[in-house]
């Protein structure tokens, strides 16, 4: 018989370590209920989720000076420096996205349905991403990933009656389900080969050297297929442009940073913990180097040909995945610090660029580059901030993107992968071309006759400034963020 006395029930210590997740899941439920009780008042769920995200953000920031990793409920999740870092990142993303969606016509415009549920799902997805960054068990890895994926399928198809949005959702769903099936097959083989569900158990079994290198390689490729889909790594990237183009723009903005960073968190957790002892037993560095080169090259070259700004940004976000993968080569601590730093900066600048598209989409009703002509004078504040994001995405000094790229390339040089660094630099030059194509449209192309100002609501200007100011500041004073990233890596479980 099942004995209640021996059950491993959660206690207060567990609950206290888990506050940001509990707040986000609580905000999800409260927003759903609030939406039912306060019909036709979407500000109720909006306020609940915003409050929840701000609370989670403050808890996450307070948790940055964590002293030692804390395991919750056995070996399922761990709260350490890295989880605090990602909690902060996700809560920040949620705050900005929620603020921005409030004035977005695609979500809140007349005739749109389910306004309250939208905010509820943002809260839920944020909670799921936080759990993703903390999982230390195959079951939690899979469940948290599916939680985020299922929510994203729903949100991609949010614009009811829009064929593009529903199509994006279906494509995302079918191939997402397939790639998670491929990953699952890999996970099941890992369980079989190592006899363990926890990452630490897998690490121990791999260190013991009982696992055949060929089997290990097969399993790694299978798992990479699933995680690669989540972070839009070539050749699992083809959904990204379609989904970003078809989804409502605030959702695309959220997808391009949130789930992607969560996928990276999971990759870090999984591969750093399990593969680090055996990284030189098979060609892991070469495999990652090739994937990184293909990803950044395909992303950049495809972006050059696009005329839809959302698609340009989609391909550029694929290219950034390539840059991030460079630091994955040897699974070192310096590489991890560089990845965390760059993920934070990437979140700021990419979210900002997508938010600009949302902002002008409200009155412009277009995402085509040709319609962006002269926007620099038609909505000056938003355009100036867009320029900051674009320069930062290119990686020129004195913007935060430059510092981020500097650390990534420094890691590659330290491991003496010079050809990879050269390819990376060449790719950055290519990216300059299409980022400046947007900049040229904003400031040098003539606006059509009679084109008036494109007003951007003050709330959206404020949300963009929340991202633009740190992007500028971190370009000259990157020390604090670097310190936070180093600290997150110092207090990490299982390394």
């Amino acid at each position, binding site marked *: 018989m099942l004995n209640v006395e021996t059950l491993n029930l959660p206690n207060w210590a567990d609950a206290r370590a888990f506050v940001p997740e509990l707040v986000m899941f609580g905000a999800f439920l409260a927003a759903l209920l609030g939406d039912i009780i306060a019909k036709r008042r979407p500000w109720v769920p909006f306020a609940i989720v915003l409050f929840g995200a701000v609370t989670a953000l403050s808890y996450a920031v307070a948790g940055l000076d964590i002293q030692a990793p804390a395991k919750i409920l056995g070996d399922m999740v761990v709260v350490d420096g890295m989880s605090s870092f990602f909690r902060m990142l996700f809560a920040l993303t949620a705050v900005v996205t929620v603020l921005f969606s409030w004035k977005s016509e695609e979500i809140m415009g007349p005739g749109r349905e389910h306004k309250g549920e939208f905010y509820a799902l943002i809260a839920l997805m944020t909670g799921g991403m936080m759990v993703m960054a903390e999982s230390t068990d*195959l*079951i939690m890895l*899979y*469940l948290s990933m*599916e939680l985020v994926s*299922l929510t994203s*399928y*729903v949100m991609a*198809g949010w614009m*009811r*009656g829009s*064929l*593009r949005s*529903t*199509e*994006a*959702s*279906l*494509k995302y*769903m*079918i*191939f997402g*389900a*397939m790639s998670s*099936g*491929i990953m*699952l*097959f890999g*996970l*099941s*083989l890992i*369980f*079989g080969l190592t*006899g363990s*569900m926890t990452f630490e158990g897998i690490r121990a079994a791999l260190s013991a050297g009982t696992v055949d290198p060929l089997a290990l390689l097969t399993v790694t490729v299978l798992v990479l297929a699933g995680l690669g889909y989540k972070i839009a790594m070539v050749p699992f990237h083809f959904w990204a442009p*379609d989904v970003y*183009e*078809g989804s409502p723009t605030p959702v695309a903005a959220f997808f391009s940073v949130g789930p992607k960073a969560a996928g990276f968190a999971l990759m870090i957790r999984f591969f750093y913990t399990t593969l680090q002892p055996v990284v030189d037993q098979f060609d892991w560095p070469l495999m990652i180097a090739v994937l990184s080169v293909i990803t950044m090259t395909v992303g950049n070259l495809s972006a050059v040909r*696009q*005329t*839809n700004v959302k*698609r340009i940004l989609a391909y550029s976000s694929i290219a950034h995945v390539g840059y991030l993968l460079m630091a994955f080569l040897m699974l070192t601590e310096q590489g991890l610090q560089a990845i965390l730093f760059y993920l934070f900066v990437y979140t700021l600048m990419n979210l900002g660029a997508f938010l600009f598209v949302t902002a002008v989409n409200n009155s412009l009703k277009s995402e085509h580059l040709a319609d962006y002509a002269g926007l620099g004078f038609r909505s000056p504040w938003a355009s100036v901030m867009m320029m900051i994001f674009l320069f930062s995405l290119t990686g020129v000094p004195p913007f935060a993107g430059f510092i981020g790229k500097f650390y990534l390339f420094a890691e590659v040089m330290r491991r003496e992968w010079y050809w990879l660094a050269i390819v990376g630099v060449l790719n950055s030059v290519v990216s300059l071309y299409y980022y400046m194509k947007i900049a040229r449209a904003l400031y040098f192309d003539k606006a059509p006759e009679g084109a008036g100002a494109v007003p951007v609501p003050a709330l959206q200007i404020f949300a963009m400034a929340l991202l633009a100011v740190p992007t500028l500041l971190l370009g000259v004073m990157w020390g604090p963020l670097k310190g936070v990233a180093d600290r997150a890596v110092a207090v990490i479980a299982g390394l």
Partner: protein
Amino acid sequence: MEVGLTHYLILAGALFLTGTAGVLTRRNSLIMFMSVEIMLSSVNIVFAAYSRASGDLSGHVFVLMNFAVAAAEAAIGLAILVEIFRLRRSVNVDDLNSLME
């Protein structure tokens, strides 16, 4: 020849490849979803087989979770499919071309 772990793994591998081939070659999205379900089934067999080999029931817990996720995925997937059919009157992925540039 006695049936062992290897037999179950080969059955699962063949099922997995059948499912993958189905997703990649079929154009009817309903059947693509069914092929994904076949892939998930093959994973379940691997977990159950390894659980029997090692005596660790964690594999069964994973299969249980997989059932629930498959059900959730089917619910959402079919809801999207119904919506697509309302708009397009077709569930063939070749007809879904509004996002091609």
